[in-house]
């Protein structure tokens, strides 16, 4: 049984059919890259898994149980964490506050009022930062002063802490310096080594070939090719991404 299974997922926005029957499986402990040109349907696909969009038809199951999320909150509750491209961190809050945002541990102040357990957040954050060797300077510093890569690490750390089964990384290196890309790739592998199923959206093929165990290529709302990354090349992937191989197939 696969960790996550998507079967014949269809979605239409008005006249445009964005997903025309997508099938996808994700195993625990693997990094599955989803690649494709702009508009191929990658973002729409992951937004169905993370509960942002609702499908027209098709099935999604997690651990063999069918799921039908009505909100991102439900999807998080089921163990699916999404790290968005824009990272969605609150600049004025500390690293720890961001990791725990929406799920703060509380304690009773004077045995009465529920207050945020800042000490616990601080401790857990520090432990987390140490465990991912992320170069985040300090769990109490505000996110505003962090670099793009450090922010990415905070977002991934958040997924890690909450014991996610599935982590979706949406173009995690899009705005990063070269050195920091390496770090994100390292973090993605680390997530997988802890048994998490990682869906990695991207379009830098060099990076995809480095990070992924398997690669799924999307083109015009379909998954047109799935391969082990050891068994493919950039040239082959580009053929599928641009629909070139498909046209060839028809011609033959």
């Amino acid at each position, binding site marked *: 049984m696969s960790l996550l299974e998507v079967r014949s997922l269809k979605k239409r926005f008005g006249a445009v059919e964005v997903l025309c029957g997508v099938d996808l499986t994700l195993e625990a402990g693997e990094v599955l890259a989803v690649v494709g040109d702009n508009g191929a349907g990658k973002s729409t696909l992951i937004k169905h898994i993370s509960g942002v969009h609702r499908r027209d038809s098709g099935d999604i199951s997690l651990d063999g149980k069918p799921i039908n999320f009505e*909100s*991102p*909150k439900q999807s*998080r509750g089921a163990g699916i964490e*999404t790290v*968005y491209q*824009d*990272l*969605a*961190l*609150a*600049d*004025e*809050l500390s690293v720890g*506050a*961001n990791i725990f*945002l*929406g*799920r*703060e541990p*509380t304690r009773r*102040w004077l045995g009465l*009022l*529920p*207050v*945020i357990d*800042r000490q616990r957040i601080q401790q857990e954050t520090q432990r987390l930062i140490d465990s991912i060797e992320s*170069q985040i*300077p*300090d769990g*109490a*510093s*505000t996110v*505003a*002063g*962090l*670099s*793009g*890569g*450090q922010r990415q690490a905070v977002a991934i750390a958040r997924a890690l802490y909450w014991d996610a089964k599935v982590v979706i990384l949406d173009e995690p290196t*899009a*705005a*990063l*310096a*070269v*050195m*920091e890309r390496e770090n994100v790739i390292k973090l993605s592998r680390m997530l997988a080594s802890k048994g998490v199923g990682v869906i990695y959206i991207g379009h830098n093929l060099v990076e995809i070939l480095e990070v992924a165990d398997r690669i799924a290529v999307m083109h015009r709302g379909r998954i047109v090719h799935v391969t082990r990354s050891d068994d493919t090349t950039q040239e082959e992937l580009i053929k599928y991404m641009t629909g070139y191989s498909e046209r060839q197939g028809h011609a033959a």
Partner: protein
Amino acid sequence: MATHDANLSPGRRMKIPAATKTRHLRKWGLPVETLVLGLTLLLWIVMSISTSTFLTSNNVVNILRQVSIDSIIAFGVLFPILIRGIDLSVGSVVALSGVVCATLLTMGLPIPIAIALTLVLGVAIGSLNAFSVYRLGIPAFIITLAGLQAFRGGAFLVSDGTSVFGLPKALSAFARAEWLGIPSLFWSMLVIGLVLHFILSRTRTGRYMVAMGSNHESARRAGINIKRIVFFAYIVSSVTACIAGMLLMARMSIGSPTAGVAYELNAIAAAVVGGASLFGGRGSVLGTFIGALLFATIANAANLLGIDSFWQMVATGVLIAAVVYVDNLHKRRQSGMK
């Protein structure tokens, strides 16, 4: 791909030490609040030395009374500002609540009931503002500007255009009272300030307000109940304005429909000078108090020195601009390339 190249600069990675260094300052809400506190202290020292009238118990008590009501309103306004909103209606709510409470009292209602009903009015006004912002999608600036007009009008209607006289003696006695040499109004301000500070710094609600003002999308994705936070912020703002309105009424012993004109602007100025950002996510109760104290001190000093009140207005304006400019400089340095 162009965006990739633009961000390849190694400069982004150099900001780490800066962030760590300012952390300790940030923890205490520095630096702009310190600057303002320093200015205020300087003003107190200079005035104490150069005049014989400033550092007298009478005058200090006077400043404390003045700063109390200003601060309470400013604390309230800080909440909508934190979530990147604004509340321009508080000055008019001060007048409306004073007039309504005074009218209820002259009708013979017991003091606690009149106060409770006025507070209910505050909750209703705050809910109305929040509903308009959250559900109807009206910009906070516009809906509370409408409130500024409408509630002032309401205050005139309730009072028939004149002041409401004949309040119970107990109220003015309360407003004049001092405990441990500190005016009761100041104690009221302290209690309200501590409660609001506690909410902001220790509770989930407070943290969610900062998160929302800082990055609305991130707050939404974190599953935060945005509606609840919006209602909370605007209700706090209106209710504190009502409390201030009743305290002002008690102090003047009348309910006046012309009370609190332009108080909303003073309150916003105090919050901003005290470190709040009109773009949300930044601001503190303590900073807001320091801001209000600076303005109250300037007003008092100008009076004692016989400085034209027109110059006082000019000075206040220049000060607001200068403080916010200095704060921006600091922030730009801190967040590096942004």
